[in-house]
């Protein structure tokens, strides 16, 4: 059995298809949804932890790709140059995963990398360019 994290990105037209049902039923894969950002009629993204035999995982991922769902292992993370941060809040406007939030008392930016789904929206949102995508495992 293997357990790995993946980022799934859905094309706009795929919102209604029961992908998770097929992963569970056809490929015997256990799913743990870490983050979901799916809006009808819009590209959505999902961060999943998939658990199954290595063969089943391969087949399940192939099935997703056949259906235009991109499925990449979550091996990137976002790094934040905290030292230069001015806590302007611009990045919190786009972070729906709740990883970037203003502390309601001191109004300084808090980054909780555990909640980050690596949607990358904060990268262009920071006017000081303080977020980088780190591709190391």
């Amino acid at each position, binding site marked *: 059995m293997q357990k790995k994290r993946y980022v799934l990105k859905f094309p706009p037209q795929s919102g209604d298809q029961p992908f998770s049902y097929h992963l569970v039923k056809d490929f015997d894969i256990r799913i743990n949804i870490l983050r979901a950002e799916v809006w009808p009629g819009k590209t959505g993204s999902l961060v999943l932890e998939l658990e199954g035999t290595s063969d089943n995982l391969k087949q399940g991922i192939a099935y997703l790709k056949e259906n235009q769902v991109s499925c990449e292992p979550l091996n990137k993370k976002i790094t934040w140059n905290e030292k230069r941060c*001015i806590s*302007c*809040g*611009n990045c*919190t*406007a*786009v972070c729906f995963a709740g990883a970037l939030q*203003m502390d309601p008392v001191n109004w300084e930016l808090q980054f909780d990398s555990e909640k980050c789904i690596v949607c990358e929206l904060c990268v262009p949102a920071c*006017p000081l*360019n303080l977020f980088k995508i780190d591709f190391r495992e």
Partner: protein
Amino acid sequence: MSIQKTYEEINEKIRRGEAVVLTAEEVSQMALTASPEEIAEKVDVVTTATFGAMCSSGAIVNFGHANPPIRMEKIRLNGVPAYEGLAAVDTYIGATACDPENPKYGGAHVIQDLIEGKDIELEAWGKGTDCYPRKHIKTIINKETVNEMILFNPRNAYQNYNVAVNSTAQMKYTYMGNLLPHMRNATYSTSGELSPLLNDPEMKTIGIGTRIFLGGTQGFVVWPGTQFNTSKPKNEHGVPVSNSATLAVIGNLKEMSSEFLQAAYYEKYGVSLFVGIGIPIPVLNADIAKCVSIRNEQIETTVCDYGVPGTPALGRVNYAQLRSGEIEVQGKKIRTAPVSSLSKARKIADLLKKLIQSGEFEITKPIQMFPTNTSLKSLKEQPPLTPPKEGN
């Protein structure tokens, strides 16, 4: 019976180290239990502050003369165009200026690099004249090599500002941040009850000549800012409910610090400059005490749709709601985010408070008050003065 202090009396107390100074947030708390009269009696100065992106900013720089001298008629600083129409070796580098080939590095970045003492490449061209024979120069300048560096911002410290949302189906990239489609976020920019002109809405103490904290040093208010508008509607607490008055400010850039002046680049919008401004408000009487006691829930602003041309108004919210993280606009709950730094603004208000308490910063009586009846004109498209010639 009712208290009336003069600027000089307050300065006397500042010099003796006896002035009672509070930040605008502290005085708003105090006002929950104290009357304006009591506040006027106890408090001498209230410090206000803001740290936000202010596009209408820039710096005057004098390079000094080279040998042989050049009359600079085209100027680039690290590739960023600077104004060439100011005598031979004076320039004005606007915060938002940039080379379209390199849009992420602009005038604001040049200004920040100058403050930080970094070397900047200066390249300039002239046609060559009898008194300025040189036609080209390419050299290195920095904070130490230039004669003057003066920050001069024609429009800063907006009195209130709109909340931005985007009703369209596409992301909008604006100076109010990245606005998600279908009003999925709302951004706001002032420091609310800490914001300078919201604490003195009629500008009874702020005018031409007011000494302020600017970018880490002492600066001055020199004029009403551009687009100064006193005719915006006000709410029952006397606060205009959208962007209205502004300040033109000046200060010695050589003394400033990038802790309080930060270059910024907004995706698909351009370059801007975060400017830190702190303004002390003398509590001369109960009337002013009442103004500085204003609280976030009493300051309202207008929600505007930045997805639609003309940014139509969609509703009104107050800063307590904005700070709570969620507002309701036309029955829809929208997540909010600030785009100016309250933590930095608080730092400035605290710093200014300490400077005044220690006698290093005195208050000034304005030399002249601002106009009270201004409104805004918009740019109309007129037919050209001379009709274009036919045939070309």
